[in-house]
């Protein structure tokens, strides 16, 4: 009597053994044996049927980002595998743990241009942490265990398992053993005591230190350690886009977001601080602007788990290679208590300018058409600043992330590195499934929503309670803004003729309403939040609304436009 099972069943049992209880996917020819077995395991492994494979990856990303668990995707071969490419690339850029299982033609057909065959491992190697083809059923458990270990340890990232059809149908004995060691891979490097001492010394000697909290702080769960360090040494904390919510917006030491559309204080003071302590971030060009004019006056400390980030974009003076939480805990006792009142005061002066020149006009206009910023601000407020913000990409992303306020960790899901339009809707679905007790507010534009709008079908099928705020200006707004500012106002291919989004939502059984005027806004937001279930607000936005402040691409970080014609003068805060 043999106790062998099929490879398909081995896959499902291995996934369950790795703690997976939910997968996002779409069936097809080369993965049917797995779906057939899934039929027997639906009580242990819930399958979310998306409407396009790209949606499965972004949903898995949203799920992973809010829960810290690995998102899992199952799709078939060929076109399904090529449809997950965007999600893989996005997950690699934004360090998101994800395991994607693609079906593959039977191993005897490999390389023969068989129906729905594509070289998945070859295509995905540059955009995954690991990509592996399984050709034998007996390798499934080993590969799944290794995939989960790699995806979620160290700097997380996406893994692809390309599963040949005969490996799914073949028989194997199944014993699952978790992977905790790979000889060639050190996910959590030992932190060197002398590195910590060197950094502590720099902090203790500095007069104008500034902390940057990145996504790595969220991934390692170092929110408390970051705040402890900041409070002890009285260091202002700034955040990257993906680092938002690692420190509450209302924390007295939180001084705002960095980057092209970040707050004035953090960007200007990047070039005025004497010490920059970057934790779990990678000096993306949207943060640094011109690297030759970036924080030249400051010593740079970089704390990261991925040593290939050190000196990649910005030369460092000291580094700590390791987990952010561990590094910050080790630093805390070595750092002296300090006060930096005068230095902190300069942020407040920047904020005053920003309030006066940007926020007032954007968030508290007295007349005229609605702005994106005021909608984001009001939605955040109506949720008690407790919602998870999911964004698409573009102006909607920048406005909502700027004017949302954060009280809890893991409250933002956005496509930072890759900037994937169409990311938002499926990511919001995944986020709601990963954090069912929290309100999920998804801000999108009329462009991005239509890139993955088919996922309204997923909302319909699973009754996912996602609040969709469509900032509709009938324009590809961010490109329009660049065209206006830098391309002589030639709006090449940015105006859009749009459908009736309320009717579309209704067709999918989603409640929706048009918000035409400012007077309707508060009531509509309340109805949306009070409604038990998905809801779409189609908000009529002024197409001329532009996102400011803005550091133009390639300019120095402290070159800041306050509006289309006025620049910030750093002398104002001297």
């Amino acid at each position, binding site marked *: 009597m043999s106790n062998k099972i099929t490879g398909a069943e081995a896959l499902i049992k291995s996934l369950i053994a790795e703690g997976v209880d939910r997968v996002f996917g779409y069936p097809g020819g080369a993965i049917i044996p797995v779906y057939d077995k899934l039929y027997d395991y639906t009580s242990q492994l819930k399958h979310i049927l998306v409407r396009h494979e790209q949606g499965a990856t972004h949903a898995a990303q949203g799920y992973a980002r809010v829960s810290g668990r690995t998102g899992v995707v199952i799709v078939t071969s060929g076109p399904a595998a090529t449809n997950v490419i965007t999600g893989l690339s996005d997950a690699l850029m934004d360090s998101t743990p994800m395991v994607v299982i693609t079906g593959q033609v039977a191993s005897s057909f490999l390389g023969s241009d068989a129906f729905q065959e594509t070289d998945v*491992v*070859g295509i995905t*190697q*540059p955009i995954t*942490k*690991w*990509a592996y*083809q399984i050709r034998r059923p007996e390798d499934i458990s080993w590969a799944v265990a290794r995939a989960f270990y*790699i995806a979620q*340890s160290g700097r997380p990232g996406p893994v692809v398992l390309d599963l040949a059809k005969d490996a799914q149908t073949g028989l194997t004995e199944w014993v699952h053993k978790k992977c*905790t*060691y*790979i*000889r*060639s*891979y*050190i*996910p*959590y490097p*030992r932190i060197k005591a002398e590195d910590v001492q060197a950094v502590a010394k720099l902090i203790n000697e500095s007069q104008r230190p500034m902390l940057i909290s990145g996504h790595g702080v969220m991934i390692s769960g170092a929110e408390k350690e970051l705040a402890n360090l900041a409070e002890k040494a009285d260091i202002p904390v700034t955040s990257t886009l993906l680092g938002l919510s690692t420190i509450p917006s209302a924390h007295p030491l939180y001084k705002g977001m960095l980057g092209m559309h970040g707050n004035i204080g953090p960007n200007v003071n990047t070039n005025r601080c004497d010490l920059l302590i970057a934790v779990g971030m990678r000096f993306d060009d949207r943060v640094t602007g011109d690297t030759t004019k970036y924080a030249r006056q400051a010593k740079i400390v970089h704390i990261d788990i*991925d*040593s*290939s980030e*050190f*000196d*990649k974009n910005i030369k460092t003076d000291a580094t700590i290679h390791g987990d952010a939480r561990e590094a910050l805990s080790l630093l805390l006792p070595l750092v002296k208590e300090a006060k930096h009142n005068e230095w902190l005061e300069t942020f407040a002066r920047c904020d005053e300018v920003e309030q006066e020149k940007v926020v007032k006009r954007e968030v508290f206009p007295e007349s005229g058409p609605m702005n994106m910023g005021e909608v984001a601000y009001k939605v955040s407020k109506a949720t008690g600043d407790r919602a998870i913000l999911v964004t698409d990409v573009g102006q909607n992303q920048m406005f909502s992330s700027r004017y949302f306020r954060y009280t809890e960790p893991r409250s933002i899901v956005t496509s930072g590195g890759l900037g994937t339009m169409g990311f938002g809707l499926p990511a919001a679905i995944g986020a709601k499934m990963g954090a069912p007790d929290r309100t999920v507010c998804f801000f999108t534009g009329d462009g991005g929503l239509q890139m993955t709008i088919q996922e309204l079908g997923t909302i319909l099928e699973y009754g996912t309670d996602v609040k969709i705020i469509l900032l509709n200006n009938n324009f590809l707004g961010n490109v329009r803004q660049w065209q206006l500012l830098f391309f002589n106002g030639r709006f090449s291919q940015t105006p859009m003729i749009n459908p009736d989004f309320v009717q579309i939502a209704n067709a999918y059984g989603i409640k929706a309403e048009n918000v035409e005027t400012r007077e309707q806004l508060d009531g509509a937001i309340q109805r949306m939040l009070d409604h038990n279930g998905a809801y779409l607000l189609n908000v009529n936005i002024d197409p001329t609304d532009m996102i400011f402040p803005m550091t133009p691409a390639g300019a120095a970080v402290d070159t800041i436009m306050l509006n289309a014609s006025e620049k910030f003068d750093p002398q104002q805060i001297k």
Partner: protein
Amino acid sequence: MEKQLFTVTVFSENQVGLLNQISIIFTRRGLNIESLSVSPSSIEGIHKFTITCFSDRETMEKVVKQIEKRIDVLKSFLYTDDEIVYQEIALYKVPTDKLLDEKNLEIIIRRHNARILEITREYTVIEKSGHSDETEALFEELKRYDIRQFVRSGRVAITKSPIEYVTMFIEEQARRREEGITE
């Protein structure tokens, strides 16, 4: 930044697709691989890639770190020529009748420290190992005999350092495993 020839060595597990993973890191930055050779290393089960590339140090240091980031790569190193002992091998196929007309064949072979691997009525195969400039010098000299085929291997290299970093890395990893510091 000043460009020069660098030698990159990579030690990896014996896994399918490693070469692609390594080469695309060069491709992404638009770097041309000058030569490449893959072979077993002195450590059982571990493969060694020797890659030469013409670039500046800063770029190459980033490339090496990104190579080392690949899961199945144990270690990667960057060297300049003065830090390694290196060698290439070249083969030359020359018509035998032309060679036989040469009165100084012995001198050429001796001076270049080359040797003859095979002689048939039609052709002769000469082998020469050395640095690129040495194998090129012989090529120049044999040109007048109408070289029919020429091939030169990728560079192979061994470090001059007395410390064997890969062995140390493997021992350190084995200790970690024993101590249970795996996560």
